[in-house]
Structures are given as C-alpha cells and as structure tokens.
C-alpha cells in the first residue's frame, strides 16, 4: 500500500515538521532528526489509515490528533533548551528594549535611583536596629558576668565602675547591677524577637517587584497577548506555504 500525498498536503506536512524542528533547536542534530523521523513515520501511518477523501482535510485531521509541535516535544528538552527554541521572539524583544531605552530611560533612571536609595536606607535602618539589639544583649550579658565575678574578686573592673565617682555599698550594688544586666539582656532579646515584624514588613516591601512581575504574567491579557503572538506567527507561515 502506498500513500499519495499531493503538493498541498506535502506543504502542510513540511510546515509542521519545520515547526517541530524549530521547537527542537538546542538538541543535538542526531537526536532532533531521529525524533522528526519518528513523528514523520507516525503521520504517514496515521494518514494512510484515515479514510477522509480530501487530502488536505485528512492531513489537517492527522496533525490535529497528533497535537501541536510544542506538545510533541515537551519533555524532550530541559527548560533552558526550550527557551533557546523561542528565538523568534528575540527581534521583538530587542525592539521593545530599544523603545524603552529611548523614551523610558530619562524618566526611569530618576525613579529607579530614588527607589534603590529608599531601599538601601530601609536596609540600613533594619541593620541598625539589629546592631542595637545585639549591643543590648551583649552589654546585659557582660554586666551579669562582671557582677558575678566581682562577688569573688571585688577589685575586678573596679576602675570602670567608679567612673561616676559614686561608690555604692556592695549589698546595694550587687542586686542593682544584676537587675540592670537582666533588663538590658531582656530588652535586647525582646528587640530581636520583635524584629520578626520588621522582617515581615521588609520581606513584603523588598518582595514587591518580584510579586508584581509574577502577577503580571498571570494576567489573562498578558497570556492572551503572548499566545496570540505565537498563533499569528503560525498562521502567517501556514498562509505563506499552503
């Protein structure tokens, strides 16, 4: 049994295989041609078994059942290779970048610098907060240690404690020093614990740019525009060849 394919059918088939090859850009030549041969073999068998009279209708039915090239190749390529196959988007992206560069740059740079400046300021404030908390914890802890050591060695650290020229009697100074140490320590620990609110706020603020990009990509009009772009390219190439 041999199968006749007229010129039109052959053109549709070639167009499909061409698109398949483009989707497989990035695969080694041997692997790519093997898959194309396999798909060609499938199309041939499917076409031979189909009983539709009109050749064009028949091949379109066969290809429709087979699915778009993107479905046939998904999984053959890793993500990065798939992106390489999308080279046809590149001219458009370059053009878009060019226009944004010309019209958006003067406006954009000022805003961007302001945003970056604010971000750095905020980061510095948060950093300062934690440094202060750390200082509290450290000084509280040291106060407790020094006070404890002074129980056994009353002369330890004595010149620093007498800075204010006030010498308190030990029975009075000890609990006072301990209390001060504990309060400082608790203050520092409390600041660190409360810092989680600040962290949450900061994560939200610094995460905003990424989030809005993600939202943008999920917007129906964005997806529609992208798919329309691909569909029109396919339609154009079909019209050109059939």
């Amino acid at each position, binding site marked *: 049994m041999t199968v006749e394919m007229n010129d039109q059918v052959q053109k549709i088939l070639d167009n499909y295989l061409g698109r398949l090859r483009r989707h497989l850009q990035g695969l080694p030549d041997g692997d790519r041609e093997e898959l194309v*041969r*396999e798909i060609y073999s*499938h199309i041939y068998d499917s076409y031979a078994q189909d009983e539709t009279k009109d050749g064009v209708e028949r091949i379109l039915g066969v290809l429709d*059942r*087979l699915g778009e090239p993107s*479905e*046939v190749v998904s*999984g053959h390529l890793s993500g990065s290779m798939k992106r390489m196959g999308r080279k046809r988007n590149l001219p458009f992206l370059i053009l878009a970048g060019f226009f944004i560069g010309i019209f958006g740059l003067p406006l954009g740079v000022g805003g961007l610098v302001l945003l970056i400046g604010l971000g750095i300021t905020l980061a510095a404030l948060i950093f300062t907060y934690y440094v202060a908390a750390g200082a509290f914890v450290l000084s509280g802890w040291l106060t407790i240690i020094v006070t404890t050591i002074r129980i056994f060695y009353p002369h330890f650290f004595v010149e620093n404690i007498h800075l204010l020229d006030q010498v308190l009697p030990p029975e009075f100074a000890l609990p006072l020093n301990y209390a001060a140490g504990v309060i400082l320590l608790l203050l520092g620990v409390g600041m660190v614990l409360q810092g989680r609110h600040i962290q949450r706020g900061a994560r939200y603020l610094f995460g905003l740019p990424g989030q809005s990009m993600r939202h943008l990509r999920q917007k129906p009009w964005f997806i529609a525009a992208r798919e329309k772009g691909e569909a029109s390219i396919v339609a154009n190439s079909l019209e050109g060849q059939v």
Partner: protein
Amino acid sequence: MENKKKQLRKGILELAILGALDRQSHYGFSLIKHLTGDNGIDLTEGTIYPILSRLSREGLVSAEWVESSQGPPRKYYVLTESGSEAHRVLAGEFTRLQELVARASGAIDRHDAPQDLPQIEVNKEANHDC
C-alpha cells in the same frame, strides 16, 4: 480544571504505556491505537512521544528502527528488565490507589472493608482510659 486532568493523566498514561509494552513491542502509532482502542478516548496523540523518550532515557524501554513494507521505517519500543519491574511496582500501586479512591468516595461500603471499624473502636477505648 484542564490542568488537573492533564496532571492525573500523565502518570496513568505512563503506566498504561508500560503495561502495553509489557505484553508486546509497539511503535508510536500502534501504541496509540492499542491504548485508545475503539472507544475514542480523546488523547492528544503526540503526548506519548515525550513519555516514550523519557522512559527511554530512564532505561525502562529500549528502541530500535525497523523497516516497514508500507512506508518509512518505524521505531519500535520494548520494555527492558527494569521496565518490567517498574511496571509491576506501579501497577500494584495503582490498584491500591484505585481502592483508596473508591473507598473515599463511598463506592465500597463498610461490608467490604471490615478491618476498618474495630480499629476505630479500639482507639475510642484507649481514650476513655486516659
């Protein structure tokens, strides 16, 4: 919804392919015919090729080109030894999952699963003791 359907299908389709190849070797088109049969399950035929190539990469199937008297050569797939093993394991898992789904949606009544009830009672008693 369409996405969920796709996800569910993917794994099961893989199992079906392993099952079909366990019985005899197939080329892509014959495998599709074998899987869909006459009942017209709507299967985008191309989706089996990525699965076949993945199975091949994983060493579960091996492939060879065979000349055809009716047209271009065909790529035949056979299950390897580890493929048979994978099919056995996955088929067993699938049966268990099937039962789980049937029981969860109440298709199997209590009569069929007697071991469930006593266990619940034992737990209750244990709670009373506490």
